[in-house]
């Protein structure tokens, strides 16, 4: 519940995977998904793979990788900060970590940061 000016951060384990994937694939990016199935999971792509739109919001950077969320979704998530963790699994979608047998996971806390 601690107030924070950081909207997105990575756990140590997730940060290690981001570095590992960066070494393997080059610079990365994230986009927070919504909806069903693997909705609510963060998607990790090679930088530039996913076209960022005019309404996407940049929440921060994780190990140098920009982390984006859709504008409409941001409005509804703005009162929370995100912590990107990693768990065993493989998810669905096109996220780069899936073949490694791990899946990034979004955990959340309340924040008092004004909307960016």
């Amino acid at each position, binding site marked *: 519940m601690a107030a924070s000016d950081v909207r997105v951060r990575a756990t140590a384990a997730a940060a290690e995977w981001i570095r590992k994937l960066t070494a393997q694939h080059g610079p990365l990016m994230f986009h927070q998904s919504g*909806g069903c199935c693997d*909705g*609510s999971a963060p998607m990790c792509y090679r930088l530039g793979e996913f076209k960022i739109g005019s309404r996407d919001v940049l929440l921060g950077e994780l190990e140098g990788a920009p982390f984006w969320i859709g504008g409409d979704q941001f409005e509804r998530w703005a009162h929370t900060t995100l912590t990107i963790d990693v768990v065993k699994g493989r998810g*669905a979608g096109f996220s780069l970590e899936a073949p490694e047998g791990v899946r990034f996971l979004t955990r959340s806390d309340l924040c008092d940061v004004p909307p960016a």
Partner: protein
Amino acid sequence: MHYARPNTDGSKVQFESRYGNFIGGELVAPVKGRYFENVSPVTGRGFCEIARSGAEDVERALDAAHAAKIKWGKTAAAERSKLLLRIADVMEQNLELLAVAETWDNGKPVRETLAADLPLAIDHFRYFAGCLRADEGSMAELDANTVSYHLKEPLGVVAQIIPWNFPLLMAAWKMAPALAAGNCVVLKPAEQTPASIMVWAKLVADILPPGVLNIVHGFGIEAGKPLAQSPRIAKVAFTGETTTGRLIMQYASENIIPVTLELGGKSPNIFFADVMAKDDAFRQKALEGFAMFALNQGEVCTCPSRALVDGSIYDAFMDLATARTRAIEPGDPLDTNTRIGAQASNDQLEKILSYIDIGKKEGAKLRLGGERVKLPGELAGGYYVAPTIFEGQNKMRIFQEEIFGPVVSVARFDGFDQAIEIANDTLYGLGAGVWTRDVHAAFRAGRAIEAGRVWTNCYHLYPAHAAFGGYKHSGIGRETHKMMLDHYQQTKNILTSYDEKPMGFF
């Protein structure tokens, strides 16, 4: 009754230790010889290996599909229909086998696969076999000597990417109309649930001509991407979530091809005050409608995961609804008495728990459940969650995103207008439920809710002859219903003059 575990004595299902791809009518190994382990969520243990395909396998499937497409597209409707009916018959003859395989691969209770997933999938093939026979183009007489013919032609080779929540049923939803309309298909099942469809493919392998249906397994980034991005597909259909949905549209834009996207929802289930007016069968039906959030462990795109209850009946209704939900206890999915099984994967389980966590942090009141359930013995490693009821308000995260677990978030409303306002305060618009004895209020609510399907005094019915799809961020296009034939066909207009005289312009 308890079904024996697959690969044990007396089981309906003996999975092979390894499955390749289904290409050109044959089971073939992936080109690079790579496989990944497939886990059963029932126990959390691996039970077979699945092809880890790459672009080269996708190309091979596309080669097979393109080799078959001209002949299949010109195959008489009566013949195509007959083959779809044959697929349905074989599925029906093997219903228990497929139901047990599906349960083992996905974790859902066999009670549901026997009564819902498989019967619906079978009917889907029969439905489109029937629609296909009645499908026709049109002809218009524009003037005495000019006739406009509208003929339908298949798109060609289409890509279909299937989710893991109803592996066989969602495959049927996508395959049946595409095949009926004369297309060849390259299908990529979800990597969490790749095995049951291979049991299915082996049963029906000889029915369709080689190359008409091809199944390529693998990870999204390695197999899904080259498929969705291929200039050799005429359409891509995807069920999943919004970021991948946008990525699929982006890939489709490179080739200027259409997409069908089903990206989920956050479906409101509205209980008006008159639900409680009598203690009768309808009240019981409405309470069952509330508990429908637990169907398929909540892993349904139209999960009624926001229950909106009129303030004047709130306490009495919620007491009954909570008692009804409490009776749903996770258990062995292969026991026909079990009404809620395992979540489909460990990461799915973790995501659900992370939502229960933020629900508590946001101050929602946990009324029931809210925890992982450890079952004894072999099931100890499985992914079970207790049906969970939160009470809160619609701005909370647990009201705004699909948790895709057995978690319902309940809010009270004051009157019709507020019910609709809350129902529509969401990014999504896939499903909705309306419960009332007042037919006028029911119809007004149905029209006012911005969603593709409004179940009125029912929920979670999925007949083939009812269109399914979303408004807003829930996606583009529809599934099910005969209109799907049009979504998998081109319109050819042949504009013909039967007048021998020149027009007189030049």
